[in-house]
């Protein structure tokens, strides 16, 4: 395991160059460039959010912050997970012809989404302060911790999904459908307290809920997330990350035959 991580570190420039060129290319040909990647998902969520707000008629003082913080962290998770099934498959040409640790391809995807996420986060923070919606407090210092936990969770999850997808191609179709369901099962558009207790219990089985919560609480409520939720996230992360690495190690040499 250590060997694999060491090798991956040796090839870190692949990830660096991939992320740099992808971002550049993503914003190269549009006038608003980077702004679009902030605006597009936000406007989309704003529309759904406002519709939800009026349909459900729930009472929330700071709904706009709740909505943006939730969708921001949810979107990075869903973006990574939805793209995970094709990681190995899309890189078939490389895997068959040149030796690069396979973890690098996973990190390419996760890093690109994380960098994108951080750029959006920073611009949202600025916007939030400018419009007087946010007030900084010490709890914000917890954000890097939440983000770091989420990143490792995503790396593990992406590895597992990408390896499984090589063996079971159905995953490519199943994962987006599951993520669609998860979007409504994660309290992003609505507060969890608004739901009947029975459904609340169901939602608490959804791991993504906890990752959203440890990110959103410091921003929204200006206090630290509950210790229990942080521990749940760490447990899931450790579990996913290490089983991901072990899975990859086990199937490392076999994937190439299945591509």
């Amino acid at each position, binding site marked *: 395991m250590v060997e694999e991580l060491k090798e991956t570190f*040796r*090839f870190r*420039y*692949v990830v*660096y*160059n*991939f992320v*740099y*060129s992808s971002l*550049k*290319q993503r914003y190269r040909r549009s006038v608003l460039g980077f702004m679009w990647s902030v605006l597009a998902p936000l406007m989309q969520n704003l529309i759904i959010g406002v519709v939800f707000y009026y349909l459900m008629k729930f009472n929330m003082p700071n709904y706009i912050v709740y909505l943006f913080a939730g969708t921001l962290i949810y979107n990075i998770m869903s973006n990574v997970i939805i793209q995970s099934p094709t990681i190995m498959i899309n890189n078939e*040409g*490389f*895997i*068959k*012809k*040149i*030796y*690069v640790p396979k973890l690098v391809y996973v990190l390419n995807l996760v890093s690109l989404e994380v960098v994108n996420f951080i750029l959006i986060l920073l611009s949202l923070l600025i916007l939030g302060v400018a419009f007087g919606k946010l007030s900084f407090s010490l709890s914000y210092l917890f954000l890097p911790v939440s983000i770091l936990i989420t990143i490792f969770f995503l790396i593990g999850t992406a590895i597992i999904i990408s390896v499984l997808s090589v063996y*079971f*191609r*159905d*995953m490519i179709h*199943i994962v987006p459908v599951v993520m669609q369901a998860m979007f409504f099962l994660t309290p992003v558009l609505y507060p969890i307290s608004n739901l009947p207790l029975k459904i609340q219990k169901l939602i608490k089985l959804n791991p993504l809920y906890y990752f959203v919560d440890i990110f959103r609480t410091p921003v929204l409520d200006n206090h630290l997330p509950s210790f229990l939720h942080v521990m749940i996230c760490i447990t899931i992360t450790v579990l996913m990350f290490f089983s991901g690495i072990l899975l990859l190690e086990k199937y490392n*040499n076999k994937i*190439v*035959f*299945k591509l």
Partner: protein
Amino acid sequence: MINNYSVEFKHASLIYDLYYDKTNTLKEYMVNLVHRRKYVDVGKDKLYALKDINLKINHGERLGIIGLNGSGKSTMLKLIAGLLKPSQGDLEVAGNVQPLIEIGAGFNLEFSGRENIYLNGAMLGFNKKQIKEKEKEIIEFTELEKFIDVPVKYYSSGMSLRLAFTIATIIRPEILVMDEMLSAGDLEFMQKAKERMDQILTTAKILIIVSHDMGLIRSLARRVIVLQKGEILFDGDTEDAIEFYSNMVSDKIEKKEELKKQEEQKELEQQKALTKGGESKRQEELHRQEELSRRIVVKKVWIKNSNKDIEVIMPEDALIFNVEFETNIDFAQFYINLVITDKTGVMVAHFRNDYSEIELKDFKKDSYSIKIHVLSVPFKSSKYKYYFRLVGIKDNEEIISDTKPIEFNILGNKKQHILIKHEWEIVKNNKDTVISK
């Protein structure tokens, strides 16, 4: 730094598990689970891509690998390059390996040329600083200065080939693994590319090359192994290995031809049985061909060895290639070809009347006998074949008649591919002593 690089296969096998392809969907997997069948048991077909390979490649060696398609040559390269791991046995590689396998696989079409240089460079294991150092050299070498910041998807195939070749060849590995020769772009670039390749080839401590081009193998490898169905059939000197391989190939070709003949015979009989009354289209066609071939009728083909018998021909022997034939119509123009091939059918010599400035215009209906005096046959010891190709032109139509290839043996010259008369003179300069003459 180690300065004793080596590659060693120890009873290494690579098995492709064919059953992998059987369970491809979750549904099948679930069904198998429910039936308590372990899915790996669905048809246990195993394919040995490489079988119990024992091979040591030492420091400084230039090894060629030859074999028919599917014999495991590329698999062997991929193992050495670390792209695959042996399923059984061991493989020890001392030194850094870089494969030069199929260039141009690794472009991201949306990225610009420059970005691809960085991305591919990193994938070859270079860090940012090292790539930056090479960047200028690469761009200059490819002559793509104007287009380097344009996405690769807008490149012409020649342009991307040039870029791919140059990136692939920035590596300076100790152990170089190469699949076929890299071809790149127009003639001018090819010249440049060849020089660059030569540089890499000479700096590599160990070279392992797979190719179907025997000329290339001859020029690069001093030791050659012949692979067949994943096993090493021959391991030794280049010329001996190529001889062994071409014997193997010609045997195979003969067998195939025999089979084909048998099949054709069968088909013809079936046709006859089916169409007893009228003639089928195929038979009509055959008829027409027969009609055509009657216009040039070969009577006799033989070789005469000026001094000795025909069984053993030495390279220095003078031979007379004879053909007697009849033409049944008048031709406006006529060509007589003599072709000598090696046993795999690759041409080694070709004679034609107009090459020797003999024009055969207004070639009248008659009977002819042709003698071609060959002063020497300076080829390597082996089996060869020769045949005549008679071509008559009438009303802009070519009528071709080939004689059956006839085998003959050349003996005596074991080492040299083509033996040109020569002498050696090696002198020690400071003492003015002759070592050999």
